[in-house]
Every structure is written in structure tokens, then in C-alpha cells.
């Protein structure tokens, strides 16, 4: 089973994300800031990271830079998930090595779509009417 690290300073957001991502058959680990997230990654690299931007101690952007510099740090698919919805933020995130970007608010369809984009899940077969 793949592991997804959910990084967000809001416990409410982490809980919602956990529910959505567990339903997609991932094992979920939570971290409330970039520094704690790095510690998780040092122990074992997750396959996926759902990453908030604005957090105390270490924000998402700084975490991402640090992650990609770690050995094996290029492996996790990193999907930003943030209220920052400006194109300048998006471009900076992509330049820093993010694989995808979700603008909050999000729902399970968006998370599923973005996880498909980055190859974390297979596309589901479309339903018939």
C-alpha cells in the first residue's frame, strides 16, 4: 500500500484529506509543519505528499526544496494543496519541483484527478448512465 504524507497546519484540513486519501487506498501520515514532515521523510520516503504552503516553523515551499535535495527526495509525487491560488505561486511551486497543484477548497474529485495526473492512481473506468 502506498503512503501519503499530509502536511497542513490545520487539523481539520488534515482530517478531511485523510478521509479522502484513505478511501483511495493509501496509508496516511500527518504532519503539521514542514519540519515535522521532513522528519517523516527521513524515516521513510512516502510515495505521495499533499502539501500546504503557509505553515509555521517551516512552510511548504521550504519543505519542498529540502525534500528534493535529500537522497531519494525526487521520488515522492508532491501535490501542493493551498489557498494560494495565484499563478505566481503556482509557477514558483512547479519550479521548486512540485508535481501538481490544488487550489483550496478541494473535494475528493479534485484530489483523485490530481493524483491520477501524477500517476499515483490509475484512471477509473467511466460509468455508464
Amino acid at each position, binding site marked *: 500500500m502506498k503512503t501519503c504524507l499530509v502536511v497542513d497546519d490545520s487539523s481539520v484540513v488534515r482530517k478531511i484529506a485523510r478521509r479522502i486519501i484513505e478511501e483511495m487506498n493509501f496509508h496516511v501520515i500527518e504532519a503539521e509543519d514542514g519540519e515535522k514532515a521532513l522528519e517523516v521523510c527521513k524515516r521513510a520516503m512516502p510515495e505521495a505528499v499533499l502539501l500546504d504552503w503557509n505553515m509555521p516553523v517551516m512552510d511548504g515551499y521550504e519543505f519542498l526544496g529540502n525534500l528534493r535535495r535529500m537522497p531519494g527526495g525526487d521520488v515522492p509525487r508532491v501535490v501542493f494543496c493551498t489557498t494560494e491560488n495565484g499563478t505566481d505561486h*503556482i509557477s514558483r511551486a512547479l519550479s521548486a519541483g512540485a508535481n501538481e497543484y490544488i487550489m483550496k477548497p478541494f473535494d475528493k474529485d479534485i484530489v483523485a484527478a490530481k493524483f*491520477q*495526473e501524477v500517476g499515483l492512481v490509475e484512471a477509473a473506468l*467511466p460509468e*455508464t*448512465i
Partner: protein
Amino acid sequence: MTPPDYEYLRKLLKDHSGLDLSADKQYLIESRLLPLARKAGLPGIVELVQKMKTGPSNLIAQVVEAMTTNETFFFRDKIPFDHFREKIMPELLQARANRKSIRIWCAAGSTGQEPYSLAMCLKEMSGALNGWRIEILATDLSQEVLEKSKSGIYSQFEVQRGLPIQLLVKYFKQTGELWQVSADIRAMVQHRQLNLLHDFSQLGTFDVIFCRNVLIYFDQETKTNIFGRLGRMIEADGFLVLGAAETVVGLTEAFKPVPDRRGLYRPGDVRLAPAKPASVAAAAPRLAVASG
């Protein structure tokens, strides 16, 4: 709603749009028509049906529109766009090298995500298409969704389903919470209102026809009729793309599946005689105008 109400709506929808609801789709009617009823100041479906029988005909038009509007999103189902990139366009670039023009028809263009997704695919091919004229025609029964498609304006939710972030940044302009497809992408798509039940032969011949997830609403006879008429408007070496859960098998000889390419079809070996549109109940008032 009462069974007679449901039957009234089923028959009305069948007559006006070909939409063929099975016996158990009350939930679909409720979810689509309750908001419309409330907007009209009516408490529910029963009152809505009453008003439809006695009131203004534009209410009927609104009901048909509400029921025929489909949800769609960018690069829906992914695979058809892989076909487009990997097979359809490479083959046509060869086959049309003298003509240097390609005509594409999105026959259920809806709110525009499908034609604009194709336009983005084409833009991503950039250099290969220098000097080429690629026409994308998007048609739909609903004037309302056509207007939305023409505007190319989508919500933050809509641009996050199916659209890779790199394409969002590249081809959209952001205004507040809304995103608009760039002007040059919009310019690649023409829009026209069209009812597939009516004659559409005046549109000409196409190299590629996308007709996804709209025929599923029609009965067998209507599907066969439409396939026959589509078969008259497609180049012999052209392509038809259907929704993943659809098929031509058992319905028509006008098209045959492409092996190993789900949803992709090519004209059959036998070219059918000209087919007339299937007869729609004479008593029903005409709604959509098939524009020429």
C-alpha cells in the same frame, strides 16, 4: 412526483430531444428540475408539470435544457485524447499533407471543455501544425451551455478536474476566482446550436467527429439513424470518437471499431445510402433550430 407526471416528462423529453429515460430515473429528474421549479417560484415537480401543461412554452424549453445538460470536464476519460495525440493527428498530418487542413466536430460540445481540450492538444503540437488550418466546430442542443462554452470562463473547481496544472498556467488567464481560456485558444473553436435529431448534413464533411456520451440517452433506432447520418459526413479515412461505455456494434455498419483503441471508430467499408433524420412526433413543438 406521480407516475403520470413522470410519464408526461419522459414522453416530452423523448419528443423534444430524443432523450430516452428509463423507468427509474426519477432521481435524475428531481435533481435537475427541482432547482428550476424553485426558480420559477413553484414548490415542486408536480406544480412544475402542471405549469408546463398550461403555461408558457419557454418553460418546456427550460425543462428540456435542464435535462439535457451533461456534466463534463477537461480531458474527460483521458484515453480519447491519447488517441487524438497518438493516432488521429499523426495519421491525418500524413493523409492531409497536400490539403493542410483538418475539420473536427465536437457534436456534444456542452460547456466547452472537450473542444478546448482538443485545442490545447493542438497548441502543444505547435511546430508540426505550421501552415495548417484546423477547424474545431462545437455544437450543442442547449443555448445556455453554448454561451458558457463561448465565454471560456470556468470556476476554480472546473479547472482542477482533468486539467494538468502546467496547461492551466499556460493556457488560462485568472481573474479572481475564475479562469478564462486564453483568447487564441478560444479563437480555435466555432460554436453553433444544433439538435442531433434534425438534419445536420449542411455542416459538411469532417475528418474527426467527437460524439461522446450523448448518444447514450437515445433509443436504439435513433442511435442507428444518427450513426448513419454521421457516416455520411465523415471522410473515408476519418475518425469517430465515442464515450468509453458506448459502442457501434450491433447498431450500425456505418462505423467499425479500431482494434486496441477503446472508443475509437472509423467509417465502415460499406457507405450507406443517404438517411433521413428519424421522425420526431409531429405534434411536438420544435425547440432548437438546426442552424445552417
